[in-house]
């Protein structure tokens, strides 16, 4: 690992992070140092804790143990440099709000408290929407957009924030192949501008085509590194194979026992 990628400058460093939902642990002792200016995929089976990893790193759900540093600092200190793109299903798309207003939310941090969204923010948001090819539907209510367009509105909101690290939760879920391609080329353009992107991804087939680095996850970190290093038969077997059932069973037993005793 060269000096540029050493921990203090790394966009995301996770140290010994354990996360539990309720009483059931869903991530065990994850240690990870992300390289910078790369397109990184988090891959693993359903329920492997992929989304949880991002959310816990951002502090959206509590960590039981461990810490996450962004650019060598706690998240609170560098919020504006980190953009989070939640799953599309996490919001109510009937909400009476336009694509432009959603994209402008990326600028709220710069606009500040008590002020209404100013012209600067609106222009930034519109530029971001144009960048993702939604310039002509900017004024539409978000419920009138297709699934792929909704996903791109979220992307535009992150772009409007102009961050250095982008954390995306399943941006390819339920979008058509064309949208997937256009999102990938946008992410690659971000990387070429020196940004880092970490994406929760569900499709093992396209990992080597889309991404530079990959992080294999199944309740614990199996392997992380460049795509060619990590995607070995042994690693994949460890991620998707049956050996993990014991760890899972232990988690469930722990939760069952504690709910009896408490």
């Amino acid at each position, binding site marked *: 690992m060269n000096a540029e990628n050493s921990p203090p400058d790394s966009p995301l460093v996770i140290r010994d992070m354990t996360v539990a939902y309720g009483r059931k642990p869903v991530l065990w002792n994850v240690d990870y140092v992300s390289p910078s200016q790369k397109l990184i995929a988090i891959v693993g089976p359903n329920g492997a804790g992929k989304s949880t990893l991002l959310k816990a790193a951002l502090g959206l759900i509590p960590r039981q143990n461990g810490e996450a540093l962004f650019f060598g600092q706690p998240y609170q200190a560098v*919020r504006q440099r980190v953009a*989070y793109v939640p799953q599309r299903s996490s919001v109510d798309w009937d909400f*009476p709000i336009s694509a432009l207003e959603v994209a402008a939310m990326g600028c709220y941090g710069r606009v500040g408290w008590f002020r209404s969204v100013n012209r600067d923010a609106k222009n930034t948001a519109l530029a971001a929407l144009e960048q993702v090819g939604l310039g002509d539907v900017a004024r539409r209510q978000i419920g009138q957009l297709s699934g792929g367009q909704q996903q791109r509105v979220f992307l535009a909101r992150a772009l409007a924030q102009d961050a250095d690290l982008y954390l995306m939760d399943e941006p390819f879920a339920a979008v058509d192949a064309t949208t997937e391609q256009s999102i990938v080329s946008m992410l690659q353009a971000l990387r070429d501008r020196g940004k880092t992107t970490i994406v929760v991804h569900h499709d093992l087939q396209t990992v080597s085509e889309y991404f530079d680095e990959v992080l294999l996850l199944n309740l614990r970190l199996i392997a992380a590194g460049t795509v060619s290093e990590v995607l070995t038969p042994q690693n994949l077997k460890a991620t998707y194979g049956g050996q993990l059932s014991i760890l899972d069973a232990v988690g469930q037993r722990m939760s069952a026992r504690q709910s009896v005793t408490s």
Partner: protein
Amino acid sequence: MSYNALLVLSGTMLLGASCGLMGVFLTLRRQVLLSDVISHAALPGVAMAFLLGLWLAPEKAGTLPWLVGGSMFASGVAVLICFALQQVKPLWGEAAFGIPLGGFLALGVVFFSIIQQVPSGNAAGLEGLLFGRAAALSSTDVLLLGGLAGIVVIVCLLLRKELLLIAFDREFAIAQGLPVALLDTLLTGMTAAICVLALPMVGFLLVVALMVTPAAAARFWSDRLGLMIPVSVVLGMVSAGLGTLISGQLEYVPTGPAIVLCATMFFAISVCFGSSHGFIYQWWSQRLLKQEQLLDDLLRSTYEEFEAATAKLQSATMAPAQTGHADLPQLALDNRLSGVHPLTVAPDEFWLNQAVCFPKSIPTKDLSLLKQLAVNRGYLRIDSAGQWRMTELGWQKAKAVVLRHRLLELYLIEHAEFPPAQGDRTADLLEHALGPHTVDELKILLRIDFGQGVIRSPHPLEATSVREVAP
């Protein structure tokens, strides 16, 4: 109208407006039941405050600040209990709210029964709080209620952006570093405050209606929060004002029901005529759209009548091979290469002098309306001899409509591999949705560039039967 009555009226209107505002956030956050809990918990709060007042300071027991304080306290406790219950596993959202609601209501009724037994209880005017009695308010009461409501409104408007964000996307709001828990508490607190402040006016049974109804009505007028908020505020304000006036005229009608009936009436109007989701509005705009489509169809059929008529004229002088439609895809290609339709080479003025034939494909019931519409738009005219003729404008429009249809048809046949007959039918359905922008795109895609002309139809035009020539 006396000064006091005017003050009461403006006070209730301000409270109505603030109810409309808070209602927008309540409905967006799907927390309507919360305001129900707040208002029902206010009942035992008021009763307790009254009893406590009798014991501590009898001369102040029935006064408004005392009662408002009591209901705020009880509502706060109820909300806290609700939120705590929400965290408990086997309970689901509605039960967590419904159970405290019932409990507090029952408690309130018990307290009220006790108050009825107390000598000064009947005279205290607590019944006003059941259904509201704005006329009973003194000017100091109104200033207190209105002032507090004003503060809430200002805070709410200042924090509009932040409150909107936590309502829309909580996770993103947390990630952005907003103090979500604090904002939640603030918003709930402000909702409780407005609820309680509106009690003397609307009564605790109906306060929810005044919060929810204007906001729900506003949703039928707009898909944009920027418009929804003012509409809801105005509806709340006007309902409150009207209701107060009505109840002022008919003294036996409490204020609350009068206000809520007005709000419900506005809701009914909005459901019908709202410019975004109102169903009569939608039906009407569908109808206008349909007429627009029929008008396009009329122009296109008329154009094609002309075309068929000329083809007959010309076929007498031309070789038969040139008029046949043997190989359709080949013909489509020919069209693109030859560009200008040979039949439109005749000067436009020639066609303007031909009598218009109305084809049978236009339904009889629509025909007279369509004729009227076409005349209003300046597409058709009746000349001095009573003959229907196209105007210059109508002719240009007809050419554009025909070109649009044929471009789409050609596109469907060449690019989407539709069989020619199906291409025509599908184009019939889709063509009305094409904007000028898409037409230009089609021209580029099909490599058709010939200025204003019209291309030949990719399929043979059947001679349609003509309905009538005279008007």
